[in-house]
């Protein structure tokens, strides 16, 4: 599903962000990528989204070598990846429904399908009753649920979550983690970038630790053994 072979990334300033990364994430896996700030976690997300190219190495996502994806085809590639951010990135002037529907409109889905899919996904994240609310009328946890619904509404094969609980208190953080786990159980590959070790330790999932741009440990969940 996701494969990185000897991937290195050095920014134009000369600062190395990742060096010689090798990893393989299988379909349907739930993986934590952890490390302190500046360790290279966000660079990894950007590389997986083809927002930037690696300086060295090859990256495969959904069987496609990202080096071979033309600029014109990047949008089609990204439609198979859902992304969730720490700061939710919701459109503040649009309702919960419109924020989710927006993700379908930009990929030119029919109105009929939008009207069917949006209530379903809002119901899945537990926000069906708040579909008319504006983001500012929701709690942080609810806003992150909207962001997850938006990331999932186009049924991507992979969900990348960059510090999804970073702006949430502990109970809300746990609720989001549980939601991500449910999503994973339905077959979506989930990659969560976090530095919150409490979630990482208690959830018993595969954990990849990055330090100074290098993978220092790759621990499988106990279920794998």
């Amino acid at each position, binding site marked *: 599903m996701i494969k990185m072979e000897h991937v290195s990334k050095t920014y134009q300033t000369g600062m190395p962000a990742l060096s010689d990364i090798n990893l393989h994430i299988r379909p349907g896996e739930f993986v934590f990528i952890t490390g302190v700030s500046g360790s290279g976690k966000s660079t990894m997300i950007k590389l997986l989204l083809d927002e930037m190219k690696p300086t060295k190495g090859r990256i495969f996502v959904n069987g496609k070598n990202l080096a071979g994806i033309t600029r014109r085809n990047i*949008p089609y590639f990204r439609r198979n990846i859902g992304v969730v951010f720490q700061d939710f990135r919701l459109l503040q002037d649009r309702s919960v429904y419109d924020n989710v529907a927006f*993700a379908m409109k*930009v990929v030119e889905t029919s109105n009929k399908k939008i009207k069917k899919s949006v209530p379903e996904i809002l119901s899945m994240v537990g926000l069906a009753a708040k579909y008319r609310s504006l983001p500012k009328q929701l709690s942080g946890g609810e806003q992150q649920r909207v962001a997850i619904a938006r990331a999932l509404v186009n049924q991507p094969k992979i969900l990348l979550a960059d510090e999804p609980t970073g702006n949430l208190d502990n109970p809300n953080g746990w609720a989001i983690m549980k939601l991500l786990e449910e999503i994973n159980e339905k077959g979506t590959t989930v990659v969560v970038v976090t530095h919150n070790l409490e979630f990482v330790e208690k959830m018993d999932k595969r954990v990849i630790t990055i330090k100074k741009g290098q993978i220092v440990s790759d621990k499988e969940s106990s279920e794998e053994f």
Partner: protein
Amino acid sequence: MKLRSIMYSIGQGFKSIWRNKMFSLASVATMTACIFLFGIFFSLGVNFSGMLKNVEESVAVTVFFEKGITQEQKDAIGNDIKARTEVSSYKYVSGKQAFDTVIKDFYGGNKELAESFADDNPLADSDNYQIFMNDVSSQQKLVTYLSKLQGVREVHQSEAAARTLTDFSRLISVIFGSVIIILIAVAIFLISNTITVGISVRKEEIAIMKLIGAKDSFVRAPFIVEGIVIGLSGSIIPLIILWFMYKNLIVYIASKYQFLSNLFKFVPETSVFKTLVPIALILGVGIGYIGSRFTLHRHLNV
């Protein structure tokens, strides 16, 4: 792009105009001023061209024949003149007609004063062709051609008049062109500014769209709609104002300054606007499109 996406982009374009209404209004106002000035210059230009044409057509080249040539040879020269594209019209003036004109010009109504020439027309051998041209700038070319024709003794031309008219016409074109170029540049700059504001307001939305998998064309389309709508509005408004202004101005000048309307004829509004409307609309849409494309290229990496 699918129809619903086109509709979505149009809707977003209008929303963006509404969201940045002050900037949009400023752009429409500038665009209106530009097209309005363009329209004024254009109308003046059309009328001025009409005037020049009239003057040009009244400047004649005169061809005199060699002594003793036959009427057939004169007709052959006439056919050669007729075949020239720069010639608008020509006429044969006999020696008698030439003399009558001189008498009329010099002695006015007192024909008896010219009686001493009664049987001796000094212009008997001065029959000629008077040639009027389409474009006075080609006069020298025609004169050179005519001088080489067999049976032609002399070709008279008003070189100074031709040169003055040509130079004046060129000067007007240069001034007209320069002003238009400056106005277009200002309009593109202002539309580009409005689009830049639109992009910065929607920066977050654009980033999300790109991450979700929106195609470049889908991201760009609302901004292009915005530019085109501003350009189009900025050309329709001045056209309406100019139409009424021009129509009323002709009537006003005709009634208040009769000497002006005797001097030259105004080009009717239907003739002016038949050309001005499509040019102004194309300019408006074109400037809007170029302004938005230019900005998208500069500020939006899609």
